[in-house]
């Protein structure tokens, strides 16, 4: 039965971002495979060539529609009072935030370094890792969304096997939060210092300069 009313906007934007980001992930994987499978027929070569810009465009569209989905979800589904007190919904919002971060980083990385990032091993794997992280979290978002619609998810058995219960509110302890944030801060500081030192001792071909 088709959805009616304003909740349909959330359904539309949810379908849109899921489709676009799945396309972005698939295009990324195809382009990665294209680096190894260099032979093949003309169709495969064309697919590999087109997959690179497709991944970027689909990711941009996906990020925008994901933001739209967040807005319509908050405004048009259930009352905010219910949304912000349901452990399932809060878990879904959290995973959505993680997915959005992955895909935003994916787009930003591609915009800064351009298509040549595929010729740099480190950047290439980072790019693929970001797409994979974004896609996996996207699957989890879809799974919890299915539960909220009163349905079961294909991921249920896997999540059950892994001991993950998306119905229980997932929170980190304060000590874990402090440890993680301190580690990230330390890592960023170390990377910045290392970068500055490397820039003072330039060596030919040593830098990963942005475009």
């Amino acid at each position, binding site marked *: *039965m088709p959805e*009616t009313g304003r*909740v349909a906007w959330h359904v539309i934007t949810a379908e849109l971002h899921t489709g676009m980001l799945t396309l972005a992930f698939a295009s990324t994987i195809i382009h990665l495979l294209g*680096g190894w499978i260099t032979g093949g027929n003309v169709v495969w070569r064309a697919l590999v060539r087109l997959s690179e810009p497709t991944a970027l465009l689909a990711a941009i569209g996906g990020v925008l529609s994901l933001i739209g989905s967040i807005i319509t979800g908050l405004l048009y*589904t*259930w009352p905010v*009072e*219910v949304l*912000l*007190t*349901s*452990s*399932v*919904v*809060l878990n879904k*919002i*959290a995973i959505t*935030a*993680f997915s959005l*971060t*992955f895909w935003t*980083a994916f787009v930003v*990385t591609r915009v800064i370094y351009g298509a040549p990032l*595929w*010729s*740099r091993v*480190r950047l*290439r794997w*980072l790019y693929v890792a*970001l797409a994979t*992280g974004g896609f996996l979290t996207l699957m989890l978002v879809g799974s919890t969304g299915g*539960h*909220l619609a*009163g349905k*079961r998810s294909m991921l249920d058995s896997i999540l059950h096997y892994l001991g993950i219960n998306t*119905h229980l*509110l*997932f*929170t*980190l302890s*304060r000590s874990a*939060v402090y440890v*993680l*944030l301190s580690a*990230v*801060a330390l*890592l*960023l500081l*170390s*990377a*910045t210092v*290392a*970068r500055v*030192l*490397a*820039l003072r001792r330039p060596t030919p*071909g*040593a*830098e*990963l300069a942005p475009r």
Partner: protein
Amino acid sequence: MAVAILILAGGPVEAAPAPLPSIDGRIAEGEYASHYQARKIGMELHWTIDGEFIYLALRAPTQGWLAVGWDPTGPIMEGEDILIGYIRGKELFLQDYFANSSVTHANDVSLGGRDDVLEASGSEDATATTIEFRRRLDTGDRFDRPLGRGAHTVQLAYAPTDDFVTYHGEKRTVVKIDFLAGGAVETGLFARPRSVDAGRNPFASWLLTVATGVILIAGLVAAFLLWPRRNRNLPH
């Protein structure tokens, strides 16, 4: 004590001997031993107990789904035993549900339980939908709540669409009913969501967790990109 629970905000409740109701999708005058009318949302609940069975009837001014549920453990409807149904065409779709979270519910069968509706019928016209059914007071199913002596927290709700998921919005009420004694008292929407800053402050912990996750992902990516390393260009 149970008898002391009487009508407050709701409509009249009657407890009088009556012949067993017929499950035919229509509620006749005096067919049921007891009834409760939720005036705020215009919904009626009728019931008769016969030994180990209970006959229940629902009527609401809608052409969509209507539901009755009882004894949630909370928050909101979590742990509630729910019977929800609608009429499409001439056919009744009634299912035995269980609220597996504060805002979601699932079919008992899908959770590993049983559908314990023994017989059911319903009808729909331009003004209202009526659903009648019979089940045991205690089904023995772990996804059902037994109806015994004393007041039960009962939630009544309906929505304008023929499905099991559309949000009911304001068309919901909560009432305390003693099915055996025939008393009811409307409690308002007492089953409110838990306060986001109650207890050990779960909302703040959740917010901190989300922020940490986002910073972790962004921070690791930034550190990875900043870190100088010899470039190994590969043909691609």
